[in-house]
């Protein structure tokens, strides 16, 4: 009897022990599951934030594009066509020599307007840019800038060239365009240097000028000025393709912009 009661007590204690183990396991599962649940939610939130950022960047790019088109039409194409109209208006049949000169001038002006429109169209066409590739698209931009004969432009390619993903090429090209616009508008530079670094593990585009430069610390100011917002937008865009965007400038000594992207060419 004593032995039986002892055995029963041992069995009950063992059962309680196993019950506690079972409760412990369930609690552990609950805690771990809750943590994982939180992790999944955070991941989802990050994804949503990232998509929001992409959308904001797209809207911003669209806004800039509209502004760019408006400026191009107003400053270039509109001016040239107005001049062509003025030339046509002042044509008089009296002097055939002057008339021929004015007809030639009008032809040239209309030809320039067509060329400007073509360049504008190419600049805006995403398929055209991704089709040509980053390197050729940048060279085309430089060719247009060289025609203005205001800048001494040098292009260097280090390493064996390769193509990047379409999205990466497009975003880097848009950043390049903005950097170029900034140089034209604000830098008062005379020389522009563009270097492509094709390395096996990374790609880097470096754009430098010998302009007036600016104080980089102004970018850190809380109330962002126009320059700060522009740089921030370029940095955001670079982040979208996991690229690093750095800007270095000394007042009076020019500016260097670097866009570095990790790649795996294998």
């Amino acid at each position: 009897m004593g032995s039986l009661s002892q055995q029963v007590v041992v069995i009950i204690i063992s059962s309680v022990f196993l019950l506690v183990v079972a409760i412990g396991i369930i609690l552990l599962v609950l805690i771990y599951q809750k943590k994982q649940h939180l992790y999944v939610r955070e991941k989802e939130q990050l994804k949503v934030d990232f998509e929001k950022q992409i959308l904001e960047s797209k809207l911003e790019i669209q806004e800039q594009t509209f502004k760019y088109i408006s400026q191009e039409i107003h400053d270039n194409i509109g001016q040239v066509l107005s001049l062509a109209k003025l030339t046509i208006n002042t044509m008089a049949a009296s002097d055939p020599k002057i008339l021929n000169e004015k007809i030639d001038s009008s032809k040239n002006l209309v030809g320039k307007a067509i060329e400007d429109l073509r360049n504008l169209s190419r600049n805006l066409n995403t398929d055209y840019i991704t089709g040509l590739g980053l390197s050729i698209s940048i060279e085309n931009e430089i060719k247009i800038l060289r025609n203005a004969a205001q800048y001494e432009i040098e292009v260097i390619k280090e390493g064996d060239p390769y193509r990047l993903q379409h999205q990466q090429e497009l975003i880097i090209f848009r950043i390049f365009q903005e950097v170029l616009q900034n140089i034209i508008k604000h830098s008062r530079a005379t020389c522009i240097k563009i270097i492509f670094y094709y390395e096996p593990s990374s790609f880097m585009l470096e754009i430098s000028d010998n302009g007036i430069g600016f104080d980089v610390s102004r970018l850190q100011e809380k109330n962002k000025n126009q320059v700060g917002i522009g740089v921030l937008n370029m940095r955001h865009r670079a982040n979208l393709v996991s690229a690093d965007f750095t800007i270095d400038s000394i007042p009076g000594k020019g500016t260097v912009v670097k866009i570095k992207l990790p790649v795996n060419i294998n």
Partner: protein
Amino acid sequence: MFRNFVAILLEPLSYALFSIAFLLRISIEKQAKVKVLFIYYLVAAVGFGYASWLVFRNQNNTWIYNLLYLPAVVSICFYFHETFYKGSGKAIVKFFIALNVIYFIIRITLFGKMVIIDSFGYSLLSISVSFLSFVYFYQLLRHVNELKVWANFDFWLISSYLLYFLGSFFIFLLYANLTYDILHSYTYEQRSLLSVLWGVHNVLLFLSSLITLVGSLWVAYHNR
């Protein structure tokens, strides 16, 4: 009176609670796995109710336990089989079903009708269900989704199974041995001790059925 209730009547009551929990589930989702377990628990509630009646009439009721062993194996394992997404999980369930069924056939062939409870069979079932519960928890942690774990009826049921089957393992394993030892000197005190032990088993079973019922009500309330 209370002792009799815990040792004898709590078992059919627990199976009845399981049946109610599964009846509630059937009203929400008409899955085969839920229907199978509902039928099993309904049959078990009736079977163990009859077993309790036999106890009051001082008749042997062990055959009911030994008979309901196989339906328990098949229905519970079927539930796990339908709950697991992956082939590996389903293969583990098939292995345990095969193991239990082979054991049942061998037992019937070698021993025929047993006068004491089939301890080995029930402890095998206990180990099988506990192992499958671990596999379920592993699957749960590997595939985290937006749904909260409390809103998942499988979690409630399988947690209750783990508590009951793991907690009762030693009782199942040693109960027949204890019964066998005192078979020839079956005194009132010895019988009382064994009923205490079975009472502990019944409390675990009741706890398990209560968790399942609460889970069923909770999930039904939150998924309205």
